[in-house]
């Protein structure tokens, strides 16, 4: 009985914390449904006409600074390709690093891990300058495959910056998988590539989910790297860049700014609501293994 009372008390505490945690989202939602003057009068009041939210959304959709559809597509292309590339290259690398017992593999692994403390700020200026030189040197600058202000450069950048953590996670997981299956495949005459992709890779699924979630959240929301590599106001822009550019050019139009932040959050929140079971499981599993 006493225990049950305690559980009810805990449940109430948890609900209170939950409400406090969600308040900022509520404030965004109610103010996205108001004209700017109502926000100035009372930002805490409920909207008089909730349908106003569609007017604000239309205004943001029409904005030539936000270019919502195009920014959404760019963000999706960059996130999806980078995440898939990271999954493939990191799992391949981690597999041979675990399975080849040599000083060389230990050293390579240590270098990847040590690189995790290199702050982005040390490499960001030289990275842009060096990408520019590659473009000029190879003549890519005048083609659709140029690196800066374009997809190839930013995807390559994410592949580089994402490998240390992804290899680290895969490395930890692969160490725990028994060798037998791979050896049987080898005896049956499977090539290394076939062994890896048809036998090992499927076994890595739990950690692959974690790697995809962590890199996906990071890349989708990242701001400084796209700012450096893509720049502001160019054809290819991500959602965080669009939001920042918009706020910079519409000071004090909080109705539109909050609607923009709402629309910026919406895609991730929707995906999270549908996949939360897997995302939360992936996070917890990854934390145990890593």
């Amino acid at each position, binding site marked *: 009985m006493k225990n049950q009372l305690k559980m009810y008390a805990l449940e109430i505490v948890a609900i209170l914390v939950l409400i406090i945690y969600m308040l900022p989202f509520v*404030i965004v939602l109610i103010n996205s449904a108001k004209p700017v003057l109502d926000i100035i009068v009372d930002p805490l009041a409920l909207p008089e006409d909730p349908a106003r939210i569609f007017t604000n959304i239309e205004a943001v959709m029409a904005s030539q600074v936000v270019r919502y559809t195009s920014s959404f597509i760019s963000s999706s292309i960059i996130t999806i390709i980078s995440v898939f590339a990271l999954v493939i290259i990191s799992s391949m690398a981690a597999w041979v690093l675990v399975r080849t017992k040599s000083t060389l593999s230990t050293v390579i692994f240590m270098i990847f891990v040590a*690189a995790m403390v290199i*702050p982005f700020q040390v490499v960001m200026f030289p990275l842009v300058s060096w990408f520019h030189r590659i473009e000029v040197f190879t003549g890519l600058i005048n083609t659709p495959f140029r690196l800066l202000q374009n997809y190839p450069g930013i995807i390559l950048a994410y592949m580089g910056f994402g490998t240390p953590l992804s290899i680290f996670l895969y490395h930890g997981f692969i160490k725990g998988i028994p060798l037998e299956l791979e050896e049987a495949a080898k005896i049956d005459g499977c090539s290394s590539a076939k062994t890896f992709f048809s036998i090992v890779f499927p076994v890595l699924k739990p950690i692959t989910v974690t790697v995809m979630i962590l890199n996906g959240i990071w890349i989708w929301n990242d701001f400084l790297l796209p700012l450096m590599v893509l720049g502001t106001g160019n054809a290819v822009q991500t959602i965080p860049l669009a939001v920042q550019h918009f706020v910079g050019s519409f000071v004090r139009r909080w109705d539109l700014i909050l609607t923009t932040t709402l629309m910026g959050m919406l895609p991730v929140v929707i995906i999270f609501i549908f996949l939360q079971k897997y995302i939360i499981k992936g996070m917890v599993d990854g934390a145990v293994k890593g």
Partner: protein
Amino acid sequence: MVTFFMFLLPAVLSFVIVIIVPFIFGVYYSFTDWNAMTGGADVNFVGFANYAAVFNDPRFLHSFLVTVAFAVINIIVVNVVAFSLALLVTNKLKLVGLYRAAFFMPHLIGGIILGYIWQFIFNSAITQVGSNLGIGFLATSLLGHSQWALLAIVLVVVWQNAGFFMMIYVAAIQSAPAELIEAAQIDGATYLQRVRNIIMPLVAPAFTVAMFLTLVRSFQQFDVNMALTAGGPAGMFMGQAIPTTELLALNIYNTAFTVRQLAQGQARAVVFFVTLALVALIQVYFNKRKELEM
């Protein structure tokens, strides 16, 4: 052997192109008069001149101190909140799935978007509450006072990250042997005693990981800083006007783009890297020792 290199090649190649080469260039440029992103071939060696300038700049020194203060407060608060949330959601609560999902949700949203949202909350919503309730202190924006503005950044970053670190602690608590905790309960250990003497030692490795990650992230904080305070409000330090909440990452960015001194920015970044690497090593060393003691 051929397989070994073929499988490593894509990862190593992108890693070298994106991190190693720019890193080497970056350290080299910090000793030169590098000044245009497009150039690079025509730079002159200037020795330690950039570093001397860095350590004589009140704005940088202030930024350094503020970053250390921010990191210390942030590491403590994020981990205390995350661990408390983890203890809360490892109970057999009815809506446990909902709590976990909700506490994790702010982590899904980028610092730029969150920074703007909270700027609105601090400047408009909280001031409204202040004037409604007649609390004069809250009626003006907290972002206008330098100490409060720094704590405001902490609050937003904690709200954004506590749910993520909560997951790390939840995983550790769940993998701790339940018999041990139950046995202690039967022996009459109070809840706090169980947390202090059984759960905390069992999840010590999770503390090492979480503290390392919060440390690195606190030092690299940029997005929320830029969107929430943009370094403001202005203040005085060593007789010079400076932005009082400009953390190191923002200071480096501003040096390169607003003040247009790339080599200077690069020298600052190298100082930043060395500091971070040293602090991270020391922190991991002490946490590992603590793990063994517990």
